[in-house]
């Protein structure tokens, strides 16, 4: 066979992404193992990468103490929704299989540095962390468990907002989750909202913003309307720091920005301080 008609051999290389994490903010290469050991925070620029719900729970709950609540509540398809390509029911089933979780949030009872809490963590891999009916129901059940058990509630958000494939049912989860949390707070219990990247749309405009304490990780995207929508509406460019946790802190909507490595210690200290008398 002539050399020029020979099929080229497959290049001898392992894809970069398999061994290295490439920071989305600064482009720095970090060995995967080192990146994981650093809690998925870029060692060069400090950008906080996204954690899965299970990783977040492992970060905050004492080992072996997390008992999941409402695991049987899973995403439903109330509208029989179908877009140009996919049926929502199929998409959500595939997402369930891929992520191993039934909805975009995992909630449960746990100990945090020995303190009994109810803890929830959203997972951006699940339909962009969107707020579906199952998500809302899980949050409601978490809030009701916290009330029943007289424990603080901690919810870590990571979401693009409402899940439009569930239509108005999804929008109503904003009211539902806020109602559940308001009841909890009215009974003198503590609710801490931990916003992680991203926390936008209907999630920012509901349970994420009504914490007794609102905290966020550094450089987290937090906002109601999308950047492009705003730029088109007001016909001007937005400053780069717009809708970051630093911007929200400056404008008075966050109590504190807490780095991931300090998050558990911060929560433990604050929970002890506020609830010591009870």
């Amino acid at each position, binding site marked *: 066979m002539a050399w020029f008609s020979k099929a080229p051999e497959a290049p001898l290389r392992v894809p970069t992404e398999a061994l290295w994490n490439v920071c989305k903010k600064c482009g720095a290469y970090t060995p995967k193992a080192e990146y994981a050991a650093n809690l998925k925070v870029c060692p060069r620029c400090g950008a906080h990468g996204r954690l899965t719900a299970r990783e977040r729970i492992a970060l905050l709950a004492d080992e072996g103490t997390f008992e999941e609540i409402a695991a049987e509540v899973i995403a439903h398809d109330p509208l029989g929704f179908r877009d140009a390509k996919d049926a929502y029911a199929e998409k959500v089933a595939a997402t369930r299989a891929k992520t191993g979780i039934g909805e975009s949030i995992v909630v449960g009872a746990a100990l945090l540095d020995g303190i009994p809490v109810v803890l929830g963590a959203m997972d951006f891999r699940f339909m962009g962390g969107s707020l579906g009916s199952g998500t809302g129901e899980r949050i409601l059940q978490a809030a009701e468990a916290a009330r029943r058990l007289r424990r603080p509630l901690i919810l870590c958000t990571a979401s693009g907002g409402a899940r439009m*494939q569930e239509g*108005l049912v999804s929008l109503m989860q904003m009211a539902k989750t806020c109602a559940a949390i308001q009841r909890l707070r009215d009974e003198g219990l503590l609710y801490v909202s931990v916003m992680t990247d991203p926390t936008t749309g*209907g999630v920012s*405009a509901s349970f994420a913003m009504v914490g007794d304490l609102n905290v966020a990780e550094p450089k987290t995207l937090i906002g*109601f309307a*999308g950047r492009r929508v705003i730029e088109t*509406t007001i016909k001007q460019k937005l400053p780069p720091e717009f809708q970051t946790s630093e911007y929200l802190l400056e404008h008075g909507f966050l109590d504190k920005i807490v780095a991931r490595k300090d998050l558990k210690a911060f929560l433990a200290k604050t929970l002890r301080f506020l609830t010591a008398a009870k």
Partner: protein
Amino acid sequence: MATTKKPAAKKAPARKPAAAKKPAPKKAPAAPSAWETVQIARHPNRPLLLDYLAAWDPEACELHGDRLVADDPAMFAGLATIGGERVVLVGHRKGRTTEEKIAYRFGMANPDGYRKAMRVMRLAEKFGLPIVALVDTAGAFPGLDAEARGQAEAIAKNLAEMSTLRAPIVVVVTGEGGSGGALGIAVGDRILMLEHAIYSVISPEGCASILWRDGKMAPQAAEALKLTSGWLKRLGLVDTIIPEPKGGAQNDPAQTAETVKQAILDAIAELRKIPLDELVAQRYAKFAAMGRFAD
């Protein structure tokens, strides 16, 4: 008056997760398509808050300001008498003329608007008055100042506080119920909706541009979103559909104002019979049941 009967149950209908197959409904709820309904809901001559107010109570007393930074003209709040009933009225204010539309930001409120509405609704709680919320907005205003002053926080706080407000709350979706900007004043004991109004988590155009990657697919998205009164009643998210004159409210605004008034009075009369503790408990149960599905 030709209002539909009060809701039989607060619970959302139990539904199986739909099969992957086309969920073709057996019979469409109403004659106009979803996209035609969107056009009626946005019709330039559709009665607005200002028209309802003029018909019900030209002497209504508007109350201004959120007591923090501003008075948002896109949100009305005030004291009105509807058919002899003293109420606190809040609602999105769109304009009719171009000048009005610009002045009222096309009915898209800033955080100041939501905070003003909440402040005035507290008066109802204090003085034992029912609240009527008229919903008609494309959404909360997407702006730099709106974000800087906490659009998300303002809406979130309203959702939380309205859920326990000790006053009867009647919500009427009169035109466009646009997403969080609509919901920010729409946590109530009775959710009424005009026949050809729409209520949706996202505009059909927005949904089409994301899921179809083409804003021109809005008619398909409108259909898929089930944003019409008939569908929303079936889904248990709306209690009462208020019928409109043939072809839509714009064809007979006076008659529409009368029908809506009667529906509001009926709802208030019904809610007045419920003790406040019970009312707040029922409101919680109502929203808790939304999106809860039996397998």
